[in-house]
């Protein structure tokens, strides 16, 4: 398997305040592989996905590093080319299905827009493709759904539409940014299974951003644990859950409640662990600040 997405030494910081948000992140995702990005809020996990898709907030600047999508260095491209390359090869499954569909357009064009406007497909062909995809995500009545407005669909339905839309252009990479966090557990299970199925069928590489270790264990083959914008540990799922290497990883696992194991005490992440990581980071940042 060749790596479809390769991130090397990616660092980003807030433009004005010179505060670092990502610290030399490196990772690679092979075709057909799901790579989990795990961490607490502020760890920078969804920032990596945004950097890959070129949608970092304007306040953030990438300081150094490479993002190679299908062998091409995205950061070296002209912005317009980069946009088109990303549009053709990558896609996003966003977190909140309630806000991720434009309320004033109906569903159909929101799925076919990329195909028609960016990839230059014929409109009829794009509509056919959308219908196919909606059927693939188990929507019974694709024609009706395509003619509906977002507010007419339930949360679970909208997430299905977004998944279908993400797969529309046969992307080689999908970034899923906490795609099930806003859903009820029972719906979450269906959606996770659906994403897994679709991903396997299309052989897509996937970056799966989540804070939930349970979800990671269900869908990913590999994962990166992040803290303060730094990758602390990379491992396969089996390795990680059997024997987490980093102290912070162990602490995260110990802080996660499990209903099957009510006796074990819940240990909040100890400050000695985070202090250690913070000290490490501080030392690196010192050098970074001096270098500027």
């Amino acid at each position, binding site marked *: 398997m060749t790596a479809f997405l390769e991130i090397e030494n990616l660092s980003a910081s807030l433009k004005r*305040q010179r*505060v670092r948000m990502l610290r030399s992140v490196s990772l690679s995702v092979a075709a057909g592989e799901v790579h989990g990005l795990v961490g607490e809020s*502020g760890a920078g996990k969804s920032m990596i996905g945004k950097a890959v898709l070129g949608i970092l907030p304007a306040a953030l600047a990438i300081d150094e590093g490479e993002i190679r999508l299908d062998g091409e260095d995205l950061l070296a491209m002209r912005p317009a080319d980069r946009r088109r390359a990303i549009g053709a090869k990558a896609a996003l499954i966003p977190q909140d299905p309630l806000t991720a569909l434009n309320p004033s357009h109906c569903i159909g064009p929101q799925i076919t827009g990329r195909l028609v406007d960016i990839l230059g497909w014929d409109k009829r062909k794009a509509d056919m493709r959308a219908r196919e995809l909606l059927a693939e995500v188990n929507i019974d009545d694709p024609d009706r759904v395509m003619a509906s407005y977002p507010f007419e669909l339930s949360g679970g339905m909208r997430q299905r539409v977004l998944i279908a839309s993400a797969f529309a252009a046969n992307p080689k990479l999908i970034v899923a940014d906490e795609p099930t966090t806003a859903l009820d557990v029972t719906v979450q299970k269906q959606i996770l299974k659906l994403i897994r199925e679709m991903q396997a069928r299309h052989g897509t590489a996937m970056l799966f951003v989540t804070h939930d270790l349970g979800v990671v264990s269900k869908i990913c083959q590999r994962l990166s644990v992040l803290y*303060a914008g730094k990758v602390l540990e990379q491992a396969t799922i089996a390795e990680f859950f059997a024997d987490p290497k980093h102290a912070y990883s162990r602490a995260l696992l110990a802080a996660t409640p499990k209903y099957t194991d009510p006796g074990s005490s819940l240990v909040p992440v100890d400050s000695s662990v985070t202090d250690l990581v*913070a000290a490490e980071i501080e030392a690196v940042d010192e050098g970074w600040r001096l270098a500027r």
Partner: protein
Amino acid sequence: MLEGRALTVRRSTPRLWLSASWLALISLAAIFAPLVAPHDPLAQDLFAARLPPAWAEGADPAYLLGTDSLGRDVLTRIIFGARIALTVALVAGLATAIIGSTLGLLAGYLRGWVDLVISRIVDIWLAFPPVLFAILLIAVLGTGLSSIIIAIIVIDWTRFCRVVRAEALNQSAMDYVTSAKVAGRTRLSTMWREIGPNVLPTICVLLTIEMGIAVIVEAILSFVNLSISTDAPTWGGMIAEGRTSIHQAWWVLVFPLIVLFLTVLSFSQLGEGLKDRFDPVLR
């Protein structure tokens, strides 16, 4: 370390200091008008009519900003005009704020029929052009300082009412209001103690804007000769006179206009500046 809010730096506020300084200057001039004004604001001297400002050709250095068609000193009249303008701003602004905000708070927090009645009245008020309404009210009340103030209050309370009502509606949906209910607070007390502090910054911003508007309304009424007496030194009256003699004596229009412009601008910037500086919650 990673807390986003630690990164938002409090905006420096030159506009607060600039606007506050100008308003302080104007206020001092108004308070000590008889001491600082070089002439009598009503004294006419037809031999010294339409003298240009001191630096221009043919000027009399005793009249720094020149004289109007009746030979009255422009600077003196601006300083005395500030008295009237600021009195109107302060009294009308505060009264409008208190009445309008209270009604808005009641409507937005209590909702139900209170809101229905207040909102309908606001709708009715919005059906009238404010300037025409003001002129009409002065025609009913007669000219004079108190009439102007009453007219401003009667017309502009809706401005506070609308904004504060909307803000109170938003705040009422917050859990801290439910929390006050859980604590056993009465509705009225919740309105004052919990919602009040949260709409106060909005009210302050509106209040300073309203003060600027009050100054303008006074000027407009003077302009159509409905303010106090035709003689009294008001900025609007000076502007009205300056408008008619604009080609012969531009200074009669320009100086009061600059002062009025800066004062109105300062009032509106003061509110925003104060909010930036003193509101404990940063957005």
